[in-house]
């Protein structure tokens, strides 16, 4: 017995060392099991508090980055939402807007030109030769003459008259309104209404060699002072060749259903005035 105690005292350090090492190795072994050891992990309270404090501090340095990523995410979601919107409400076509460039930064800048206001349609006509839509927004809400109006699915028209609380919109179903559009391959043209049917628009003066297929989407182009680009106008239902002039006429089914308009967006183009002034000044010379 005495020898044993002497042995212990003599090799106490070594025994303690080996004991602790074995404890460590057992701990390492146990990390592989499901139960693990919760005490020796950063899930425990003290380590958790320290890490929380640290992240509270680091949070501020990351705000700028987070802001950017949120913006990008927002833009992406907006893009996605566009698509979903279209699938839900527009039966005859799947894509309202061709998927934009992958670089979301430019996408944001493009969007920033335009301010969207929501408005409710309170009156609507489809049977006159110049149809008007009345909305519950007026000059007090910032609506001004010539602003573009779109619905969730496509082009609606252009603001014509503004009162304090209301505005009337010259709808696309009108002989006066011409919308600048482009075909899928980028050919530009004008869309007018031929007064025959409420859902059918015509695109005039399309060169004969342009190959237009049934079902192609027609979108607004960048030329317009008021409409943002890439808003859907309609889908091609048939084409007709005018032999005399050597052009073809493209008939479109309007993507907006003018019979049941309820909500529209009024779009304020921030650069419309500047663009118009520039174009007018060059036209005078």
């Amino acid at each position, binding site marked *: 017995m005495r020898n044993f105690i002497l042995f212990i005292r003599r090799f106490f350090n070594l025994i*303690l060392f080996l004991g602790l090492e074995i404890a*460590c190795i057992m*701990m390492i072994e146990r990390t592989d099991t499901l139960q693990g050891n919760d005490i020796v992990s950063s899930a425990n309270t003290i380590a958790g508090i320290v890490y929380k404090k640290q992240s509270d501090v680091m949070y501020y340095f990351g705000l700028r980055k987070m802001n950017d990523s949120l913006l990008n995410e927002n833009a992406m979601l907006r893009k996605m939402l566009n698509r979903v919107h279209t699938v839900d409400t527009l039966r005859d076509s799947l894509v309202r807007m061709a998927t934009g460039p992958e670089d979301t930064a430019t996408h944001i800048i493009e969007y920033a030109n335009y301010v969207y206001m929501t408005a409710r349609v309170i009156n609507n006509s489809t049977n006159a030769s110049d149809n008007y839509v009345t909305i519950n927004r007026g000059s007090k809400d910032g609506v001004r003459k010539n602003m573009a109006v779109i619905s969730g699915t496509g082009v609606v028209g252009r603001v014509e008259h503004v009162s304090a609380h209301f505005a009337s919109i010259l709808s696309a179903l009108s002989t006066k309104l011409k919308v600048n559009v482009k075909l899928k391959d980028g050919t530009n043209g004008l869309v007018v209404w031929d007064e025959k049917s409420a859902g059918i628009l015509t695109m005039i003066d399309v060169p004969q060699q342009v190959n237009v297929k049934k079902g192609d989407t027609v979108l607004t182009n960048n030329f317009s002072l008021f409409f943002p680009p890439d808003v859907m106008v309609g889908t091609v239902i048939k084409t007709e060749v005018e032999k005399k002039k050597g052009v073809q006429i493209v008939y479109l089914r309007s993507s907006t259903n003018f019979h049941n308009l309820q909500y529209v967006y009024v779009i304020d183009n921030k650069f419309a005035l500047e663009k118009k002034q520039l174009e007018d000044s060059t036209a005078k010379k």
Partner: protein
Amino acid sequence: MNSTIKNILRFCIILLLQVLILNKITLRWWSEPSSFPIFIPFVYPLFILLLPFEAPVPLLLILGFILGITVDTFMNTAGMHACATILIAYLRTNVLSALLPRNLSEYSGQHPSIRTMGWMPFLVYSGFLILLHHIVFFSIELWNFSNIGFLMLKILASAVTSMLFIIVYLLLFTRQNAARS
């Protein structure tokens, strides 16, 4: 200042330095060969290295265990750091008595530092123990000896970087003779 309080403070400082700052920076010496290991420098074994000369081995072992387990807690590597730290705590006394000319009990009230030991002995002492610590830690961490070159490279690179950080720490936190007078 009392030596105990001083050591407790140093424990906290080194631990926070390790956990909050050094753990966040992943280093690699150069990025050209993509197989070059990435690593983080470990400065925390310095606490064991800087304990007073006459600290008894059992105390060193217990402190090493506590230090290692704390670092493990923060890094979710149950027991690995503790294992390596206990080893260097155990071997510390032997290394010191081999390097120092006089018996350890004659250096009462002092702790190992560049001032008390001189540059070369201290660098050999800390370098040896740090290398040992890294060898044990990375061997346990990888636990894969099929690619021994990678392991060696990782140990070597990490140990050299850790030593650089330790020297910087010592230069920053030791009171210079000039400041004292």
